[in-house]
Each structure stands twice: as structure tokens, then as C-alpha cells.
């Protein structure tokens, strides 16, 4: 009776590990990214600051190394329009739209890490904030240019020019 109780309480796993349907394992080599650059644009600086804290924290938790976090200067788009519907050219109204930027650069990622990080960070993008992503891929040098050309060409015999 005691033995049966012990077996009933414990989790007796089968020999196969549990297969998670969401995780896909493939044999093809992953593309490597040297740099993943996220440029975040917004109207409100406070929102961008809090988003920067969130993105850096997420990168640290996932083990992604952050190259640098810098804030490019803001761009102000100014419009000068006529104040009145008809005539009165001397009286105008001025509007401006400020866009603040924040650039987050991450280095040395694999494509699956990049996919996971980008999905998480983009799902939590606040409203009124836009993001542009630039990826820099690392590729192997193609075979035909691995060695310099002048090493492989056959030696040309030098002919004297007789004038």
C-alpha cells in the first residue's frame, strides 16, 4: 500500500520529453545578425524614456548584449498657415510637430532571438510611438572571392616591346 501511494503521488514521466507544439526545431543554420538597430519615434519624451527602460530590461533578461542607447536630436516640423478662411494675408497661425527619437542598438543576435525579442518589444509598443528596425546580417564570404585573383591567375610571360 505504501509503495502504491508513493508512485501515485510522484510524476512518473515517460521516456520521451514533452513536445511543445509552439517550439519548432529545424536543422538549417540560423542567419546571424551583427547589429539590430531599433529607432523609436514619438511625440512625448517621457513615454520614450519609459519604453527605453523597458526595452533595455527585456534585452538584459533575454541575455542580449546592448551596444549603445543614444538619443538623436529631436526634429520639429513647423507650418505657417493663413489664420483666416478668406484674405487677411498678414495674419497667420503657426503650428509645430515635435518628433523625439531614441535609438537602441543590440549586437550579435541569432534570427530566432531577434524574432522573439522584436515580437515581445513590438507587442508592447505604446500608442503614438513608431518603431523602425534595421538588421545587419553576417554572411560568409562567397567562395569565388575568398582568395585574391592575382594569386590564382597563371603567370603571363613578359614580352619586350620593341619600338
Amino acid at each position: 500500500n505504501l509503495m502504491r501511494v508513493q508512485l501515485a503521488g510522484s510524476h512518473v514521466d515517460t521516456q520521451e520529453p514533452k513536445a511543445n507544439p509552439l517550439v519548432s526545431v529545424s536543422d538549417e543554420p540560423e542567419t546571424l545578425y551583427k547589429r539590430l538597430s531599433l529607432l523609436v519615434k514619438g511625440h512625448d519624451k517621457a513615454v520614450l524614456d519609459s519604453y527605453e527602460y523597458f526595452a533595455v530590461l527585456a534585452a538584459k533578461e533575454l541575455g542580449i548584449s546592448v551596444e549603445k542607447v543614444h538619443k538623436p536630436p529631436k526634429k520639429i516640423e513647423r507650418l505657417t498657415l493663413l489664420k483666416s478662411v478668406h484674405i487677411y494675408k498678414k495674419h497667420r497661425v503657426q503650428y509645430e510637430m515635435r518628433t523625439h527619437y531614441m535609438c537602441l542598438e543590440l549586437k550579435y543576435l541569432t534570427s530566432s532571438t531577434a524574432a522573439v525579442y522584436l515580437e515581445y518589444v513590438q507587442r508592447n509598443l505604446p500608442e503614438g510611438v513608431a518603431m523602425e528596425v534595421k538588421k545587419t546580417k553576417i554572411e560568409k564570404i562567397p567562395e569565388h572571392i575568398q582568395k585574391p585573383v592575382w594569386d590564382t591567375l597563371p603567370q603571363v610571360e613578359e614580352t619586350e616591346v620593341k619600338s
Partner: protein
Amino acid sequence: PLSPQTRAARVRVGKGDKPVTYEQAHAPHYIAHRKGWLSLHTGNLCGEAGAAERALEDAFLRRFLHGTFPGLLADAAVLKRRANLLVVCVLLARGLAPAKLHFLGGYAETLLSHFYKCPVRLELQTVPAKVPYKYL
């Protein structure tokens, strides 16, 4: 420096009997200083398109809400756009029974979703009364 003759989005000073909310009391030059934005989208950022479409949608939504909740709006609605999802946050005064508010909310959500072809989420909150910030 602003001229005293500007009349944009300002409530003019009167006898002192007009209750005015915090949103209405502040002029547009206080946006990002003392006020926030009522409609949040990426159309107005540098290098982004779609500002006019968003502005049109906002105008329609505000009129629609003014019509579906007659006399109940305590403050201007806040519209948030998160990647195809439209979140509309509305503050209402307590004039109707909660069952009716639920029906109106559901009706507004389904109608707007079918109209704009995007998921629309309506977040209603009731307040005991309109809160006046100042009397002008």
C-alpha cells in the same frame, strides 16, 4: 509670445457661472506641459503617413459617441491606436442604468468594428458628476 486676441481651443472668461473641466480650461500651448493628447496615433510623426485619415476617424468617433451617449459624456474621449486596435476610453456621468450602458457599449463596439474594419475596444467608466476645474 501669444497675442491676447487668439481664440483657438480656449474658453473665454465670463461671469463666473460656467463650470469648465481641466481639459477645456487649458489652451493648446499647454499641450505636453500641463495637458496630454486626446488622440494618440503615429500619423503626425516625421516620416509617417495617414494623419488626415486618423483625424477624420477621430472627428467621426467623437460625434458618434456624443450621439450614442446623449448628455452623459463627462469629459472628451481619449482614443488610442495600438497596431490596428482602436481603444476608446470614455468617462460617463451616471444617468442611465448599467444594463443600458452595457447595451450601448456593445452596440457601439460592433458597429464601429464593422465600419472601420478593425477591432474596436470601448472602455467606459462612470463618474458621479462632471468635475469642474474652474468657473469661468
